[in-house]
């Protein structure tokens, strides 16, 4: 703690305190804000409102009947889970075309997302938004870790830091993602990601994977700063810059004549 005390007047300290405050407030809000108990059954009104939202925000790419166009795939049969994932993570509506839709600012609130999902679900049978009992992350961390290493780590990296795919596509970082969205991604296989249906990874398996990822988010760094959990590349970069830099700095000081 002497390290902290010594730096309490450092100019960066106030920034850090502010940041910390923001993070804590945000975290508390997320923890305490009222949540939907479960994806409630959709009413006809929801479907109707969802259709309006769809026509306003999605139809230009997915077609007025959601049958797909050259710009976007058909949404018939993708289910509510796909909508909840794509819209809930801000990937859709797409702000700018690119090799892949990226996590973005969420533009629709929970109600709108639900209505849109209800409309898309009404187009054809598809996976529904999962129940919270399988997305809360109360699974077996160790089992989840093993499943993660077999099924996910090759693209998303051992700690879910993300990884490169071909031609500019990439597997995104999985850090600090809501359990529901992790679940929905496995279930629906968005974009490049393959599908992990319930016969491949059972709902409990999926919750184990979520438990593992949440543990990665929450566990203390056992050995200090984790350098982004990217493996030897960031370690090598650290050794070649800060590490050897400090040592050479000491050597220069040692070789210079004292005043």
């Amino acid at each position, binding site marked *: *703690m*002497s*390290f*902290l005390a010594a*730096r309490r007047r450092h100019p*960066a*300290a106030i920034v*850090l305190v502010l940041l*910390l405050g923001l993070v804590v407030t945000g975290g508390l809000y997320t923890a305490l804000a009222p949540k939907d108990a479960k994806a409630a059954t959709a009413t006809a009104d929801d479907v109707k409102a969802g259709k309006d939202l769809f026509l306003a925000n999605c139809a230009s790419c997915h077609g007025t009947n959601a049958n797909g166009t050259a710009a976007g795939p058909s949404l018939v049969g993708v289910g509510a889970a796909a909508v909840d994932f794509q819209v809930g993570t801000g990937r859709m509506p797409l702000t700018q075309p690119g090799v892949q839709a990226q996590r973005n600012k969420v533009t629709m609130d929970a109600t709108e997302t639900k209505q849109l999902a209800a409309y898309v679900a009404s187009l054809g049978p598809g996976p529904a938004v999962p129940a919270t009992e399988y997305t809360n992350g109360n699974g077996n961390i160790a089992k989840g870790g*093993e*499943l993660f290493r*077999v*099924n996910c780590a*090759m*693209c998303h990296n051992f700690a879910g830091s993300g*990884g490169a*795919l*071909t031609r500019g*596509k990439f*597997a995104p970082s999985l850090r600090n993602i809501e359990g529901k969205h992790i679940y929905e991604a496995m279930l629906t*296989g968005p*974009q*490049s*990601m*393959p*599908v*992990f*249906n319930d*016969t*491949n990874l059972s709902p409990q398996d999926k919750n184990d994977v979520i438990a593992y990822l949440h543990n990665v988010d929450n566990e*203390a*760094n*056992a*050995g*200090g*700063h*984790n350098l982004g959990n990217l493996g030897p590349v960031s370690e090598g970069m650290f050794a070649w810059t800060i590490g050897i830099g400090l040592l050479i700095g*000491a050597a220069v*000081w*040692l070789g*210079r*004549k*004292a*005043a």
Partner: protein
Amino acid sequence: MSEHDNLPERSSGSSPVDLSKGHVEGTGGLPARFENPGLPAHVHRHGDDDDAAARRSERQVAGLFVLSMLATVGFAVAYFAIDKNSTVTLPLVGVTNALHVALGVTLGLSLLGIGLGAVHWAKTLMSDEEIVEERHVLRSDDGARQGAIDVLTEGGESAQIRRRPLIVYTLGGALGLFAVPLGLQLVGSLGPLPKNDLSTTLWSTRIGQRDGKGGRKRKLMRDPEGTAIRLTDVTLGSVFHVLPEGINETEHPLNEKVKASVILVRLEESKIRSQRQRDWGIDGVVAYSKICTHVGCPVGLYEQQTHHLLCPCHQSTFDMTDDCKVIFGPAKRPLPQLKISVDTEGYLVADQGFAEPVGPSFWERG
């Protein structure tokens, strides 16, 4: 002929300066090269003349040594007092194990205190007047060289090397061969011969097989759970990581996994470009070796939309719709396909082993 004959003329001390091939008429009596002006005058430090500055340095050095001692005490306190699961939040570093950080920082400061103090002492208080040490030519003088040669020749004479060639040759032979037993033992015993181990996998045998006969086809099992997979489980866009049934009952499961690991996907049949690939799969469900044909990493990065399979080690990219041919990267050969079918209970089984060796290339695979 000595190499020196071909040396370019050097503008060393005695020869006249050559300002580009005679364009300069003489050097005006100036030396050809500058003279070494000798050591510059010693510049005093503050501490050399000012006793107060010297005392300040003394205090700084002592202060650093005291810091070191305090840090050492801190290390001992941290070692015993801090619970190994307690955490601390540090700026930049984040939430970190408190014991680890405390030990690292106190150990670092304890060492740095000594090092910085000693160097500061040397820089500010020890004499910083440069000292000159003379070099001597490394080569021995001619007398010593001759002496060494004489010792050798006299020794040789006394041992009658020249007169007894038989001894010299047989000794040479014996010395030349003495490493053979040691080498033979090492090379011979380190490992078994590969035989056809690299060319076969667990898939080429059947469950309950005796003397190469009977038994039933191995099921495709989920990795890591070891449960069988129905054809209907493999929906479009799915990927299954697969091991052969019974792999954990083998003598060396890891060795078998290295070769038998398989990736299973379902493609739209219309997208499959190779007839063989269609025939060896079933309803668009195809199984390929998951072992890269480059250096053997598991090729697991399946892009559901492009049907590309990417190896995370060296980025070899395989096209799953075209018999897993290489479309980018350092690998040469396609991934071998595993011929699959459905058994009576609806589970996926392997009809036969791979038709060619899986994994990295090796000399004998031909």
